[in-house]
Structures are given as C-alpha cells and as structure tokens.
C-alpha cells in the first residue's frame, strides 16, 4: 500500500525533546551511580554544535535537494513507488551509503575536516551524539547517496530514512549499556561497537564506521570488537584545547588552508586535501596507519624483549 509522502514529517525535529530528556536522564544516572562523567562546558559545546548543525542541514537541502529531485524525476532507472518495502529498502541502502561516507570521512582529510567535530570530545555520552558538523555541505558526501535516486527511490523517502538513521545513532553514544544480546551485537551497531569507533587507542583507530547495521564493517574488514583489557580512551589523537564552538567547527578547515598555502607543489596541495588526516610530504605528522604500525612495532619489540 503506497504511503503519502506529504505526511512524512521530519523525524529528527520530532526527536529533539526525546534527546534532551534522555541526556538529562543520563546525567542523573551518572551522578547517582558514578559510572558516567559529564563536564558542563563539554556538554554545552556538544549540544550547541548539534543545535547549530540544523542550519547546515538547511544549506545542504537547498544545495542538494534540487539535484536529488532532478535525478529522481528525469534520470531514474525504475519507478520504485512509495510502498512500505521501498522504505525498508531505502533504509538499508541509505545506511550502506552512510557507511562509505563515514569511512571516507575518516580517510580523506577534506571529509574529515567536517566530521572531526563529532570526535572532538574526550567524553562519550548522549550529548556527544549531538556534537554534529556545521560544514558537511562543503564535502562531497552527498554524492554517495545519488545512486539511490538513480535507482528510483523518491528523495523524500531517502531523507526520511536518513533522519531515522540519525535517531538510531543517538542511543549508541553511551557507556550506560555495556553489551547487548549476542545476536544484536552481530547485526546492529551498538554502544560497544561505537565506543570503539570513538576511541583513540591505536588498536581501535579507523574502525566500526557503521550507522545502523554493523554488518557493513564485518563485510568490508573494518570491524574491531571492544576489549575489556583495553578500555576506550575517547577523543582525537591530538585533542582540542578548547570548548569554543567556532574553533571546534573550523579548526581542521583552517589547518588544510594553512597546509595548502605552504605546500611546495600541486601534488602536495592535492594530497593535503585527499590524503588521510595526518599526511605530510615529509612524514612529520602521523596518519592513523602510521600510529597503528608504530603501536604494532612497539608490541612486537616488547614480545622480543620478553623472549
């Protein structure tokens, strides 16, 4: 039975009171149990970033909504309609696209400049989920969703599913829940999987990119399980020294501009934009791969010394 797209609404806007209520509950739970720690300024920055990211969403809709509609109306391969199964398919395809956007978001500095904001807190709680980017419209993220419109799924369905995807990802930003049932951990993204994603421990860097379904990480080799003997240490490899939202939002963009301005060749200029974060022509900074290699080498050296 077809669903009327004009009644879809905006799921993320409807969920805002729920987000606020759950953050308050988690604060009270953490205070009562001493299991979770909040920091006032960190909480403010995270939630303020989330509130202002709504404007970035509006800019994205203006810039890319028309393109999506044009592709769907003039270039689509099939007319998929608006049945419930199309919503289900759109949800899975949007999550698959999200996985790749997120993976590229960690591996390409241009996209990392927008996404780094979400990782810039040293805390991991529900307020961290709301620490969202203001600059995603400056990246090529939207291109990853275009195949869904070519396939013939209406943009309104895709945007609705992306809203649900974002709502799902809210509850996994918590240390309140340790592990979910095994079957759930096998298929779905969970607090445990996502804690690993937010950790800066060398073992955990660049892993668990999933939005809703962790199966993408298992399929494409980026899954790393959480280990009780290596507790997650949250934040960035080089943490920010500020709570100032403007500095949080734009620091990596400024870093890119500075690096490109000081680059000696066009090759270096391009690589400062598309190479992994931390790349430099002389290797003076470290990428996540270099950090992991270094950590492995250190572990091997310890083993040899022990033998």
């Amino acid at each position, binding site marked *: 039975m077809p669903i009327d797209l004009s009644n879809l609404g905006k799921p993320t806007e409807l969920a805002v009171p729920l987000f606020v209520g759950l953050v308050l509950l988690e604060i009270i739970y953490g205070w009562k149990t001493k299991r979770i*720690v909040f*920091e006032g300024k*960190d909480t403010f920055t995270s*939630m303020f970033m989330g*509130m202002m990211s709504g404007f970035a969403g509006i800019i994205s809709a203006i810039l890319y909504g028309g393109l999506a509609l044009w592709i769907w109306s003039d270039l689509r391969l099939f007319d998929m309609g608006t049945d419930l199964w199309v919503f289900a398919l759109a949800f899975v395809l949007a999550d698959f696209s999200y996985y790749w956007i997120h993976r590229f978001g960690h591996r390409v500095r241009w996209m990392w400049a927008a996404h780094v904001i979400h990782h810039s807190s040293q805390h991991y709680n529900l307020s961290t989920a709301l620490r969202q980017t203001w600059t995603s419209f400056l990246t090529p993220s939207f291109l990853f969703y275009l195949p869904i419109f070519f396939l013939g799924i209406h943009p309104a369905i895709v945007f609705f599913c992306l809203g649900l995807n974002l709502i799902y990802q809210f509850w996994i930003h918590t240390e309140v829940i340790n592990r979910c049932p095994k079957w759930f951990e096998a298929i779905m993204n969970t607090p445990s999987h996502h804690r690993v994603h937010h950790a800066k421990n060398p073992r955990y860097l660049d892993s668990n990119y999933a939005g809703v379904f962790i199966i993408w990480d298992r399929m494409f080799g980026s899954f790393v399980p959480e280990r009780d003997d290596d507790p997650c*240490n949250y934040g960035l490899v080089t943490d920010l020294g500020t709570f100032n939202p403007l500095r949080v939002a734009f620091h990596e963009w400024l870093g890119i501009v500075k690096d490109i301005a000081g680059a000696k060749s066009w090759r270096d200029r391009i690589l400062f934009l598309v190479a992994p974060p931390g790349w430099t022509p002389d290797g003076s900074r470290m990428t996540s791969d270099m950090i992991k290699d270094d950590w492995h080498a250190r572990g091997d050296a310890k083993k040899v010394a022990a033998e």
Partner: protein
Amino acid sequence: MDPVQLIISFVSIALLALIAARLFPAKDILSAASAEADYQRYNPDALIDTIILGQDHQTALLLLKAPSDQLGIVTRLGDRLVCRTALKGDIASFSVNGDKLSIDNHDFTQPNISIRLNPGELTRAQNLITGFTATTGGSDAD
C-alpha cells in the same frame, strides 16, 4: 528554523550544561604523575626528564631527555588533559606577569596557555620555552 524552537533549544542546552556542571564539578586532575602518564600515552617515544607543574595545576611543561628538540605541554581542559609537543618555532611568544607565564601558540585550538610558578621555576621555564619561540624571546609585562 523556527526562532521560538531555537530559543527553547538554547535554554534547554544551557540548563542541561548547568546541571552537568553542578553535579560533576571538575576535579583537580593535573599532577606530575597524571601529566607524565598522559604525555607518555600521547608521545610514547618521549623520555621525560623533568616536569614543571604550575602551582594552580592547570599546566605542566615537560622537559624531555629525548627527543631533546621537543617540549611537552600538558594542560587541563575541564576534567580532561590535553597534550601538545612543541617544536622550535611552535610558540609564537610569551610574557611574564608576576608569577604567571603566558604562552601564545601557533595553535588554533589552543592559542594561549598560562602557568603559575614560583620565582625559581619561572626563570627556568622562561629559559626553556625561549628555545621553542618563533621570535627572539619573550617579554616581561611587569
């Protein structure tokens, strides 16, 4: 975006942050031991020689045996620590005002740090950071 919704959101955020700040007061977390442990995690190759810890426990300077061309800086941000490694030229300038040494960095997310020290350690810290300053040295504000 609806302005009323925006105002309500902002007030809610401010209230939640206030509640968090009241229920979780930031503790004095920067000590010589915590500075050493966190910096060692950040820079595992570093061999730490001496730690100059500020009297207000906001900042620590770490003199390294190796690599000797680097200076470790650990600062407190709320209830967490932030580590930096300064190389020659990374510090833009510094100034001294009473017992406070203010350091301006070429770092967008941490443009300024300060450290309060007793007179002996203040002179030592000044001498130490001069080597990492882009300009020819600091200035005395007092």
